[in-house]
């Protein structure tokens, strides 16, 4: 296996909640990320999935130090950047780029596409002539029309704006791209174009991706390994194929079983785990295992009282469940009232 590019250890990111009209008091925290550890290897795509509010975006942004970590450690390419001052962070920033769900909000509407893509190069003091050639190349590799440079973001469709954002992100030859729901707003036919483009760019530019998304089918398609998050914690990390064929965490099982598959025959015969209730609040997460309030396999006391650590199961697979082995062996079965067989 290749070397790690990103190593995150016990990362916590809390957002303080303040209240009070006259004197603001700190009344609690949103524990958006609460002890996340993960590694991203050079050249791989690590998918980060989970339902909205589980902390995916916060993890992505904190790795790039766009949010300040509350505690924990972030190491990029061997360098601890957790407390690095902004001045020393800047050169590293160029090597780590972010791609957003809605690129429109991050593109200046009054700038034409050429100057949007050229900007980071000019800031870096590249010669005007070189810049023009590079911009032309970038516009081509992301598949924008040749005359795009002289046009403005609003003249483009959502999918094409996503390409503009991508061209700009690639300008400084980054090593890592954190792509936060990059295809979630796109229609499927356009989404497929974008996914293929991301795959091609990875090969061409030797990129490492943290691919954040809530759509498990997309994540499974594009990722080498997948990390599953729930309420600020990692539940399981496994190679993409294994995560699908042999999920170890009950939450992963439930999530997989809830994803609709565009095939009526498969849909009719699938066994479904329908979780009860809603996600608990990240302000007051459940004690013990965070998933125990909705877990079909929940066991007396231990699940409620003891936080399960992430531990190795099989080759390359880690899971945070006290009873993963017993569940895998069929010694613990789901409570029947929580498993609906798809009619």
């Amino acid at each position, binding site marked *: 296996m290749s070397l790690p590019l990103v190593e995150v250890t016990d990362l916590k990111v809390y957002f303080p909640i303040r209240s009070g009209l006259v004197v603001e008091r700190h009344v609690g925290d949103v524990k958006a990320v609460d002890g996340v550890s993960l590694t991203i290897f050079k050249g791989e795509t690590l998918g980060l999935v989970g*339902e*909205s509010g589980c902390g995916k975006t916060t993890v992505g942004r904190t790795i790039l130090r766009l949010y300040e970590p509350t505690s924990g450690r972030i190491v990029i390419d061997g360098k601890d950047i957790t407390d690095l001052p902004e001045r020393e962070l800047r050169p590293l920033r160029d090597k780590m780029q972010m791609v957003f769900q809605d690129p429109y909000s991050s593109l200046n509407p009054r700038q034409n596409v050429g100057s949007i893509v050229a900007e980071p190069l000019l800031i870096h003091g590249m010669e005007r002539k070189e810049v023009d050639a590079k911009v032309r190349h970038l516009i081509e590799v992301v598949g924008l029309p040749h005359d795009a440079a002289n046009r403005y973001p609003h003249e483009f*469709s959502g*999918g094409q704006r996503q390409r503009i954002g991508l061209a700009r992100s690639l300008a400084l030859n980054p090593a890592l791209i954190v792509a936060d729901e990059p295809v979630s707003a796109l*229609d*499927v*036919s*356009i*989404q*497929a*174009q974008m*996914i*293929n483009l991301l*795959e091609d760019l990875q090969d061409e530019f030797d990129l490492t991706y943290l691919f954040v998304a*809530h759509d*498990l*089918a*997309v994540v*499974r*398609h*594009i990722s080498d390994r997948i990390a599953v998050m729930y309420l600020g914690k990692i539940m399981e990390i496994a190679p993409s194929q294994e995560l*699908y064929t042999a999920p170890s965490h009950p939450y992963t099982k*439930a*999530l*997989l*079983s*809830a*994803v*609709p*598959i*565009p*095939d*009526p*025959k*498969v*849909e009719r015969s699938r066994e*479904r785990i*329908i*979780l009860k209730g*809603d*996600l608990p609040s990240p302000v007051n997460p459940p004690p013990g295992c965070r998933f125990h309030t909705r877990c079909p396999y929940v066991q007396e006391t231990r699940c409620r009282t003891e936080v399960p650590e992430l531990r190795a199961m099989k080759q390359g697979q880690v899971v945070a469940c006290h009873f993963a082995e017993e569940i895998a062996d069929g010694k613990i079965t789901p409570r029947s009232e929580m498993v*609906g067989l*798809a*009619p």
Partner: protein
Amino acid sequence: MSEPLLSVTDLEVRFKSRRGTIHAVNGISFDLRAGETLGIVGESGCGKSVTSLAMLGILPRQAYPADGSVMFGGRDLLRLKDQEMREVRGKDIAMIFQDPMTSLNPILTIGRQLTESLRRHLKMDKETAREEAVSLLDRVGISDAGDRLRSYPHQFSGGMRQRVMIAMAISCRPKILIADEPTTALDVTIQAQILELLKRLVSEEQMALILITHDLGVVAGVCDRTNVMYAGGFVETGATESLFATPRHPYTAGLLDSVPRLDASGKQRLVPIPGTVKTLMEKPTSCAFAPRCMYAVDESRREVPPLREIAPGHHVACFNPVPESDLPQGAITEAR
């Protein structure tokens, strides 16, 4: 076969805009039978929502009056007076939307909103309406229904609000429920809950369901029949099973090839549909999909292809349907 419950013929909707007329829906026809679940699937902007709004007479102001007919109970809904249409909407045909807040009043309790509709449409007295409201919330899976009646919409999560919407929609025992992207804003585990609920209610209440979605997986799991929509027209319609197993319109086949499947074996490259949808600024005179289609023939560029039956109950609007030899081999043999 029994008489259709609802019969839409040549429905056409156009909008006024500063840049000219937008041809949003271009003469679609379909039948809906009692108790049936029909999916309308297509990408954003293809006219799914406008179709349902037109059927219910609630098109936005910028729209011209819809053309065609929507026959229900011997009457053409497009020709009803406002007052008559309001009756139909409350009682016979109900609709739920992606964002329940568009139909819930934020300053009234859930109980008030539920009982008001029951008292107006079913002429229930206050106490009966309250009991019925509790039973409705119970049926859509909201626990402590009695207490929940006093809650306001913002006190509910997205999934719970959608349940409340569904409770209101079914309160007058409609014959048809139109659900426009009812789970698009929800997380998958909550989506699974809501889809289960809809399936259960459809069979319990013997209601027909028109489920509008962009998600092929959702129609595959819920609908008996599926209509695929592209640029304001239906390009393929049929039993969900046969449409997915043997998609004959190049657009349907293209959509299925471009979605990543959770159960894919191994890593295959996606096959995107090239190009983008063309604008709806003129009335189509040719196949709207032709510019993106590798199967297009001369005729496709000259004429609008009509829906033709190519297998029992399976219709395709295409002059050169995908040959069976181009379909995935497994699909063909299984379908036979």
